[in-house]
């Protein structure tokens, strides 16, 4: 079932066109060691698509949060700003770190080859290094550090916007009220 669907997708015209476009070789690069490397459109897509995707996710999530009718306005505006800032910060951070992360992984792999470990194990470990280290660092930047920084940052941005009058928490919005508990529903005793 799944495979049939996949094969019909793979045979569709637009998909064949795009796959052919992706595998087209645009230029060849020669390493300082003299190795030739073919660069295709697919490499470019891999480079720039994650950027576009995370921008899309950030914009959409913060927009949907801003438009939500269930949240009180005092809460949802800071949250929307928070999501946007977290996305942008994490993205720029991981882009900045990207090069050094690649270097670091290469370094770990080089160290691994020098260590006295069995060849079979070494292959496994090499694969693990390749997947784990970039992922670990990007997860830390994008999913943890940026989001943690974004929360207080969003608060200051929100305060600034409120001060400048760009965002107004109008009086028509329901004011914050005290929770209705069992005690408050009891008949009140006059003070005097």
């Amino acid at each position, binding site marked *: 079932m799944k495979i049939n669907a996949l*094969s019909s997708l*793979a*045979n569709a015209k637009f998909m064949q066109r795009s796959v052919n476009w*992706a595998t087209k070789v645009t230029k060849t690069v020669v390493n300082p060691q003299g190795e030739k490397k073919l660069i295709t459109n697919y490499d470019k897509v891999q480079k720039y698509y994650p950027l576009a995707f995370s921008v899309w*996710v950030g914009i959409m999530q913060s927009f949907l949060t801003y438009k939500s009718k*269930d949240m009180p306005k005092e*809460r949802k505006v800071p949250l929307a700003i928070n999501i946007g800032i977290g996305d942008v910060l994490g993205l720029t951070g991981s882009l900045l770190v990207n090069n050094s992360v690649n270097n670091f992984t290469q370094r770990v792999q080089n160290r691994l080859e020098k260590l006295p470990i069995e060849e079979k194990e070494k292959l496994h470990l090499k694969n693990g290094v390749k*997947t*784990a280290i970039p992922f670990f660092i990007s997860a830390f930047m994008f999913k943890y550090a940026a989001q943690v920084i974004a*929360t207080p940052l969003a608060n200051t941005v929100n305060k600034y916007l409120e001060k400048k009058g760009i965002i107004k928490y109008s009086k028509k919005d329901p004011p914050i009220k005290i929770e209705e508990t069992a005690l408050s529903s009891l008949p009140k005793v006059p003070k005097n």
Partner: protein
Amino acid sequence: MTECILRNGKHVNSSITNIRQSNSNNYNRGNIYNPGLNSGEKTNFTGNVNGTDKAIDSFLMSKGGQKILKFASLNPTFFSLALMTALATTLRPATIMVVPGAKKEDKKYAAMKSIISASITLVTQGLIFYPLGKAMEKAGEKAKNAPNSTKFPHPIKTPKFQAFNYFTNNGVAFFTMIAASLVMVKVVAKVMNKIMPSKRPSQPTKNETGNEAQRRDK
């Protein structure tokens, strides 16, 4: 940091001057360096190494490190998912609550958003992307083994297969993202309304008229 710990662990007299010296290159650490190999030799098998390399070596040679790397190489999707959910459901909300600078209610919203979006990604990954990846693999294998038996055109590990794989995966991700974030916003709002009902306008009960409710709230 790691260097100091390593050096303390390796019974080197670690005064401040020593650590300072070790940071510069003119201090020879060839003799004291023992990465804890199976043989108890004190000689260094890779020549001169600096502190970071030492840390890398000790991580690679340790049993825990090898286990983590093996797990990552055998099932990368589970590795990434486990790490992501662990970060987003425990550590991140805790840190968000602790870090000062925002109102407490905003912090609560941010923490809850983190937990809920992480669990949503867990569900979507498990229900959509893991089966999709498996199906892709199967299709590629079929095309590789018997090209005429299936209509799937690209055998596995060819550049065309990789490009097709990338396009389908990301295409699906692009559109599921909309639904997932819609669900996220809804669930966050609902959960927060249940946790912090004081932020919601209290509705007048049946016994009271609207005027009475207003008066009481003032």
